[in-house]
């Protein structure tokens, strides 16, 4: 690629990401034969693309942001794209991978944002990933691809349903809850469940994680039963070997 084409792309990146105006880009590259206003339209298009993608991925965040303050949603989208440039998101939805993380960063910097936003964003995201992650081998549980365990401080699934039905749905009081979100290995449908203590122990054992004392004291038979139940539900897969049998 020659120098003039390199310069073109460098100036366009700056324009499209909103770091310079169309006029500034034209000063470096020469005028667009279509005029500055038409040239500048490309920045508008790209801004719209990021807004649309994030709105479709995180509809409840947009609703709550707009309720918090007029213009906050646009600030969040533009701030997010500037802070987390959308690299590697050939699937446009991958743009949302770090949105929850960004919302947490903003909340820590200024207290305007409620914590529920980042938890909702995380829930939207794992739901998307569970629906679309590549097909996984029959004996692979697919943690963090098909199967997610999350601790939330609000009743996120119920509030998500409420705000989807009614933009004015009231934000609930904090209520810690543990959620297992999974794409069923049995029927391919995405579901959630709340695990029992024995279920948690079964999930931990599948990942070869050390059990905290309260779970380590559970009856092995109960944990095995929970594992079997999870296999029936499609949360976990049928293992071809007994847990711990492999070296």
């Amino acid at each position, binding site marked *: *690629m*020659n120098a*003039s*084409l*390199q310069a*073109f*792309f*460098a100036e*366009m*990146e700056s324009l*499209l*990401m909103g770091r310079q105006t169309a006029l500034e*880009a*034209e000063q470096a*590259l*020469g*005028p*667009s*034969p*279509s*005029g500055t206003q*038409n*040239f500048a*339209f*490309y920045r508008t*298009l*790209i801004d719209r*693309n*990021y807004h649309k*993608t994030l709105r479709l991925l995180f509809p409840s965040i947009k609703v709550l942001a707009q309720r918090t303050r007029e213009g906050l949603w646009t600030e969040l989208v533009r701030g997010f794209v500037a802070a987390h*440039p*959308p*690299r*590697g*998101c*050939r*699937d*446009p939805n991958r*743009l949302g991978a770090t949105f929850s993380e960004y919302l947490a960063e903003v909340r820590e910097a200024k207290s305007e944002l409620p914590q529920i936003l980042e938890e909702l964003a995380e829930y939207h995201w794992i739901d998307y990933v569970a*629906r*679309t*992650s*590549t*097909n*996984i081998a029959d004996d692979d549980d697919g943690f963090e691809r098909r199967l997610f365990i999350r601790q939330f401080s609000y009743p996120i699934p119920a509030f998500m349903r409420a705000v989807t039905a009614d933009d004015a749905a009231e934000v609930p009081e904090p209520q810690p809850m543990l959620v297992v979100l999974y*794409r069923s290995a049995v029927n*391919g449908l995405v579901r959630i469940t709340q695990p029992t203590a024995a279920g948690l122990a079964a999930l931990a054992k599948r990942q070869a994680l050390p059990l905290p004392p309260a779970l380590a004291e559970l009856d092995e038979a109960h944990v095995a039963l929970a594992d079997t139940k999870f296999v029936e539900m499609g949360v976990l897969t049928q293992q071809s070997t007994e847990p711990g049998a492999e070296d």
Partner: protein
Amino acid sequence: MADEFKGVGIGLRHEHFDEILETKRRVDWLEIVPENYVDIGGRASRILDACLERWRVIAHGVSVSLGGPDPLDEDYLRGLLRLCDKIEAPFYSDHLCYSAIDGIEFLDLLPLPFNDEAVEHSAQRIEAVADRLERQVLVENITYYATMPGSHLQPGAFVTAVAEAADCGLLLDVNNVYCNAKNHGRDPMTMLFELPWERAKQVHLAGHLEEGPRLLDNHGAPVVDEVWAMYRALLEKAGPIPTLIEWDTDIPALDRVLDEADRARAIMDEACPGWEREP
């Protein structure tokens, strides 16, 4: 899977997943956006497998960035090759544009400057992609809302120069030509035949959105009469070219999209009598 790739197809969209396998209406083939299927599982993957039992499926990409500055994504191209092999795609099509710079994806099809440097650069990359995918590449003429600084060629001459340099095929999007003509004050029919139409192996038809002074190529409305007229003129000159109805925004029920496909097929019947019997 049907062997022949001819007639009129539609895009496989998730909004139609529930309907497509049930339809009794005629669908000659399906086109997928491979970015929605490469290394993606779940329902989309299952529906694609079911569709392959019934229809020929081709792949039309949006993100390889054929004219872009970044190195080709070899991992993605390997996945794309696997998908193209799986669906037995006769070719791979993508847009004559760029969509990323320095890894940043703009989620759009952005115009290159219409000049010799961009011709040479794009042609080299198209040849490389054809090599990686082990099949011919078709480039689609895109909509452009502004001519980029540094351009000295007309858009049709630019597409022709790239297609000749890369010896690739053309995916001729008639609505894009129409939008470009209207947005840049040119005659649509003249712009249509300035493209290397003899290389066209597929046609796209879609609707657009009028927004202020511009026509936006949003694929969110029926095909307009002027575009149908251009399509007829193209077929009368070029013969039957497999044609896709694109509808990607405000997607209606499947039957409405199939109505558009029927209209395209009727025009193909009138413009190219006997096309269905041709080998």
